């Protein structure tokens, strides 16, 4: 654990195993203990092995795999371990992870578009999100919107705030028409 597995680096003429480092940080999930002590410090203990304070929890792929591949980093931003899925940990740990991730990844989910005004390439959005009503400005939507799927869209405003439309087709007709006007 924690060291590179370099098996297979020896030359093999017939069968090449190209990927020789496989999840070096994979740990026994059951040995993971995640808790706050004191309340503002998040700690991770791998039972019977190591303990870390001030850890960070990050998503390896926050947009495409938000609930998978969750990485735990130490205070120096070095990876301690990664879990493949949130389902692998118990409920209290899961709650802590969610809390940390929600704090780190602030993305508002757009539920309804009230209006979009477009002036010389800059658009002014007025939307209803899961965090309430928001107004934001996007410069050149084509360059600041990222398609995350056929109908899933991420919009980054001029201040770097993120707004996600999880499913364009699920929007009401008026909202959809407004979005299509600027896309």
């Amino acid at each position, binding site marked *: 654990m924690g060291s590179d597995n370099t098996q*297979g680096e020896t*030359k093999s*003429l017939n069968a*090449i*195993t190209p990927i020789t480092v496989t*999840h070096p940080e994979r740990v026994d999930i059951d040995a993971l203990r995640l808790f706050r002590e004191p309340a503002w410090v998040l700690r991770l203990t791998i039972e019977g092995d190591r303990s870390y304070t001030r850890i960070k929890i990050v998503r390896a792929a*926050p947009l495409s795999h938000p609930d998978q591949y969750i*990485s735990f980093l130490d205070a120096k931003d070095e*990876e301690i371990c*990664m879990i493949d899925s949130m389902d692998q940990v118990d409920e209290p740990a899961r709650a802590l992870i969610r809390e940390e991730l929600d704090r780190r990844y602030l993305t508002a989910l757009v539920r309804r578009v009230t209006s979009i005004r477009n002036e010389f390439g800059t658009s002014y959005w007025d939307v209803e999100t899961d965090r309430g009503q928001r107004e934001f400005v996007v410069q050149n939507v084509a360059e600041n919107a990222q398609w995350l799927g056929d109908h899933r869209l991420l919009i980054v405003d001029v201040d770097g705030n993120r707004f996600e439309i999880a499913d364009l087709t699920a929007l009401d007709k008026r909202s959809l028409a407004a979005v299509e006007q600027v896309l």
Partner: protein
Amino acid sequence: MADLRADLFRSMQFLPLRFYDKRKVGSLISRMNNDSDQVEGYLIFDAPFVLSNATMIVGILALLFYMNWQLTLYVLLPVPPILIGSSLIWNRLQGYWRRWSARWARLSTHLNESIGGIRVVKAFAQETREGERFDRHNHALRDVSVSAERSWLVFFMVTNFFMSFGAFFVWYFGGVQILDGQLKLGELMAFISYLWMLYQPLKWFGDFYSFMVRAFAGAERIFEVIDARSEPFEDPRATPIPHIRGHVHFRGAAFGYDPGKIVLRDIDLEVQPGEMIGLVGRSGVGKSTLINLITRFYDTSRGSVEIDGIDIQSLRLEDLRSQIGLVAQQSFLFNGTIAENIAYGKPSASFEEILRAARAANAHEFIIGKNDGYDMVVGEQGNKLSGGEKQRIAIARAILHDPKILILDEATSSLDTPTEKKIQEAITRLVAGRTTFAIAHRLSTLRSADRLVVLEAGKIAEVGTHEELMALEGIFYQLVQTQQATSAVMATEH
């Protein structure tokens, strides 16, 4: 039209590198957007109306003949000189529009270069000069456009002038016929009304002619690319080779980019599967060219290159290329996410595989530190990442691609020492078990090579291990000495 654009793009993808050596990117892009626009405009706005306008002309002429065949012949009197004039001006106009397309391509190339190289432009404060260069291209484009339009306008006015002779003849000879009692005034007026109806579609054909010339010039440039000889990807006679072992054999291979200018000659080299070869030599000696022969970016002009005992030219190209991996000095990344770039050679790769490749390439550590991790969009040519980061993504891409033959072309140059160490580590994992050809100016990075091949004046001058070549005290020895002396001087200066 979308099909034509798709064909053009597909052709561009399958064209050999030789084709690109002699053409500029801007020029090729202008064929995709500008020339195809000309053809599209012609096909959508002009061609569909040919039939209706032609029918109208034939119908009205038939009516005119029926009403008064003699007067109709007078109407048609100016037609033969107009047709002769049209055929004469066709070549002239086509020449103008060809030149217009070429100048547009030059403008597009300049635009592409000056925006792509905006950092260099700014660093050398060359904004004004670039603006002047743009003006020159822009004015050249305007001039040819004005010449073409002027020629067309003169031709159009002369044509109209001749056509009006037809009307004049009708008035004159119609008047004579009325005086002779052969024709009534009402009949002449009706004839003239129909005559004006004839001019409308005729005028349309005049405009159509101009657009057709323009579209044909555009189509010519498009089909020059589509009809160019592409690489033999679909050759049914090619030998499939789904599993390359990695035995590479150069047999008296020679090559030159231009006929008569030989870059490599008499290359005889046998490389065993899994062997790592370091290619050494002065700049421009032919190291990269040698590699281009293995990937079959170019074909030998004499001799052959064999892979697993089969001449590379008879191998199925897709099988060959899909089993060769390349990590170059300037890693090219596409404007997609990090995950997409790693999986470029294997789009079906699972996220687990992408993760493993990134870890093996020592890239995972920095990727995880990015806000969007593997979902980060790297920007055009990966410009949101540092050189070392791009390089590690390129290595991860090569790892996932799982090539049997690996080419490292200056893969660790231009990097700081800690980054180079990480990349060197990743490369050590990558080369294991693969036939590897590595080029590096810093000779110390080739210590792990099984054999070093020293090229001099396009020929193999020395072959051996690092120790053997040092003991030989030949070209390699001199190169090492020079490099050490340079390093010592630089160390003293700092």
